[in-house]
């Protein structure tokens, strides 16, 4: 009898322990001070800042700025969490909103702007709040000057949707070409190539040298380069002005601009000029090939300008991304990511998040970020500051990206597309290009197939999100 009671007690306590473990988080979620209500005076307000960088330099930059802000504003505590990729951070944020513990700010990339605007929580409300709307015309928040008006036009135009900044620009770059001038000059080419024809001529000269490298040029098989080329040639990727005058419901992967570019790419590969590393989105492999002098030219993101300046042992010169000489140049677009503020914070918390984002991109911080990486200085004030310090005379390569963006016309083509399911569509494009490069397929046929897949993908997205 005694034994039986003991057994029962044990069983009951086990169940209690199991259920207790489950119910604990629920209690915390319901606790006051977390969502709707304001924090009591004197209490430190925590704001989670999710960053999609995991390398020491860039994540470290964010952590250092957060620490500085926390010292300056002791009533706030900005807590940086690192994620492996933009998608990981975004998925985690959507789930966190549904479970009631969202972060304050997340770092999300340009191609998913449409997806971020469309995202809703389980209650059907948008997850993010427009920063323009939240700032509401103030020129400073908690003593931090608002820098939104000073944002350089390329980034402003890209991220302005329906006349307002939804997110706060941070890391912004464009594609530039890095040239091994020692090698080019040895082959008798004294200036970096500007057009597709120039590239072919330079490659012919380089590959004709006695000690020719294994290839002439490389760049990652990433859809961003395709989009850049479409912008240069003034071609749209999606309808409704690249999704900027309305929702894009159709993509054009068979346009002349697309076929020109992919055709040129394949021709370079067929001639042995273009080195394909064999991996999609291979930033490391292409960068290594350039540093190891296995190729003379590298088309890449300007975000690594400082890295190439510091890590090359040859004369490394940056230049504009080569363009198609047969059509008029329209403009290159930006790439990178912005900071999105989550909706549903109380006024004090939201002001803290806004103040931090403006502090994060104040002229000194924006200039330091540019110098650390090569991402363009995000505000005109930061450009002026760098100019005053003589930075551009010291490192002329760092100016190329800003100059290229300034040379662009402000048209829907050169602004870049806002598309639903852009990540999936990009995947369709890179797979098609890999297929063309590796299996020697006909460009028009394969892109027609890709076009069909991409349009199916977009129409399914619009079925879920569109009107």
């Amino acid at each position, binding site marked *: 009898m005694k034994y039986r009671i003991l057994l029962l007690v044990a069983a009951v306590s086990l169940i209690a322990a199991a259920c207790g473990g*489950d119910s604990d988080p629920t209690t915390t979620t319901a606790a006051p001070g977390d969502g709707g209500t304001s924090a009591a005076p004197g209490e430190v307000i925590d704001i989670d800042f999710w960053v999609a960088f995991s390398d020491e330099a860039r994540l470290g930059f964010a952590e250092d700025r957060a620490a500085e802000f926390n010292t300056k504003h002791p009533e706030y505590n900005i807590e940086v969490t690192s994620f492996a990729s933009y998608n990981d951070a975004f998925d985690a944020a959507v789930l966190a909103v549904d479970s009631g513990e969202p972060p304050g700010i997340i770092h999300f990339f340009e191609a998913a702007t449409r997806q971020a605007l469309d995202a809703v929580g389980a209650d059907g409300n948008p997850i993010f709040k427009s920063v323009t709307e939240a700032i509401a015309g103030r020129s400073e928040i908690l003593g931090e000057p608002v820098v939104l008006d000073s944002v350089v036009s390329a980034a402003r135009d890209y991220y302005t949707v329906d006349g307002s900044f939804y997110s706060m620009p941070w890391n912004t770059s464009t594609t530039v070409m890095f040239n091994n001038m020692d090698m080019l000059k040895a082959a008798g080419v004294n200036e970096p190539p500007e057009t597709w024809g120039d590239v072919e001529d330079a490659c012919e000269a380089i590959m004709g040298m006695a000690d020719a490298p294994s290839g002439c040029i490389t760049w990652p098989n990433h859809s961003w380069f395709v989009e850049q080329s479409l912008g240069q040639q003034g071609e749209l990727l999606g309808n409704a002005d690249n999704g900027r005058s309305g929702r894009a419901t159709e993509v054009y992967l068979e346009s002349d601009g697309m076929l020109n570019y992919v055709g040129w790419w394949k021709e370079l590969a067929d001639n042995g000029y273009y080195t394909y590393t064999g991996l999609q989105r291979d930033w490391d492999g292409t960068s290594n090939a350039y540093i190891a002098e296995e190729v003379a030219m590298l088309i890449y993101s300007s975000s690594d300008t400082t890295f190439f300046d510091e890590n090359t042992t040859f004369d490394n010169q940056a230049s504009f991304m080569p363009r198609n000489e047969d059509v008029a140049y329209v403009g290159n677009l930006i790439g990178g990511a912005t900071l999105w503020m989550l909706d549903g914070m109380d006024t004090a918390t939201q002001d803290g998040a806004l103040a931090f984002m403006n502090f994060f991109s104040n002229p000194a911080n924006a200039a330091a970020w540019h110098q650390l990486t090569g991402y363009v200085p995000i505000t005109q004030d930061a450009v002026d500051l760098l100019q005053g310090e003589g930075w551009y005379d010291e490192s002329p390569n760092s100016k190329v990206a800003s100059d290229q963006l300034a040379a662009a016309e402000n048209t829907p083509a050169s602004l870049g597309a806002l598309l639903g399911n852009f990540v999936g569509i990009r995947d369709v494009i890179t797979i098609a290009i890999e297929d063309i490069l590796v299996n020697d397929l006909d460009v028009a046929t394969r892109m027609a197939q890709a076009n069909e897949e991409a349009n199916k993908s977009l129409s399914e997205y619009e079925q879920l999100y569109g009107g």
Partner: protein
Amino acid sequence: MLIIGLVGAALVGPLYTWRNSDTVSVRRFGIASAVAVAGAAVSPIAMGQCGFAAEATGVDALFAYGLMAGGALLALMALQALFDRADGKVKESTAMAGEIRTGGYRMGWWVPWLLLSPTLIILLVFLYRPAVETFTLSTQLTRLGAPKSVDVCFSNFTEVLIDNPFKLVLYPLLAIGAVYGARFWTRRSLPGSASHRAAGVASVAAMLSVFVALYAMFSPGGGGQIAYRPIYINTVIISVGIVALGMIGGLAVAYLAFRDIRGGTLYRTLLIWPYAISPAVAGVLFFMIFDPTAGVFTHVMDSWFGIDVPNYREHAVLAQGAIILASAWKILGYNILFYLAGLQTVPIDQIEAAVIDGASAWQRFTKIVLPALSPITFFLLVTNLTYAFFEVYATIDFMTKGAPAGKTSVAIYEIIRVGVNNGDLGRGAAQSVLLFIAVIGVTLWQFRTSGSRVSYGGA
């Protein structure tokens, strides 16, 4: 359309009971008929009869009938268990378990359930509920953070298959027919005769015909269908390669390391290390070895032997070979561990007797060691195959990302690419259901074929 299915179930119910029960009665036939209809009706009710809708294709209807048949069969099997209990027909093994269980019944029927409940709750929350949700998701078009989702019936499944319902029924029937035909032939022919040997060949051919049937059932793409056939081929090649290389290599190394060697314990411990490495790290390691720019292997081949090694990621065979090598190497330590343990159970007296009888080392290995190891081999076959199906994503993602042009994209890689990276939850779920069915199918098949040949020693 729906009525045909339900009437069919009503007829099959009594038939099933008649075939399986000791005692038959009109009442039982009636119950069986009703239960079969109820089982068959579950899926059309849950899915709103979408498989029979006006715009549904023949393949949709096929799926709907398939689910109805499955539901009816499950219901009948459960019913049969009740009938058997009523008949007092309990199998020997269950009878033994029953004797042990009686202790619990003295305290009331609910006590065992109470004691089990912590485990059951955890299983329900973390295993069964997600599994059921996967099945629900697989019939939807949906994304994370989307304001709504759309029911798409079976289209996430039908789009990876060919669109001819008759062929979809015919091919598996032919393959099953071939397998049973070969088995029948093997049983009827005398062991040692030419006919028996021919039957052995036919069994292998029949086994291969299952792969061929599946190949023919998956869509080659085009016409709005997803090209799943190449993914199926990649999965078969890479999984079979990993399992074969991993197990043969594991046994070979374990057999060598099992001898008495100075420092053998340390040496054997070191052999197991690769197992402690994650699939991602294995991918990075082999990437570093074979990378055309920075790779050690390519560098050595080029500078020492003057051989220009091509970029493995641009050639299907090399890329698949590299994935197989990296994944087999990673599982090798695990296989060695189990084979080392297994080798200790090989009866020494039999080997000594064989030596006296003049059996060669190879004969001793194939006639004594291998059969003694068969339980281990069987266990490893299942675990290695599960590994090859489910855990190669990270290795592939680091080594090839599916290159060249999807030639190393296996089922699990495709699931994560579609479902996680592209956020298409419905298709991802549907493809994981396919993989789930594949693993269940392969495991059942192994239990039926190799299971019967496994010797656990003893009687």
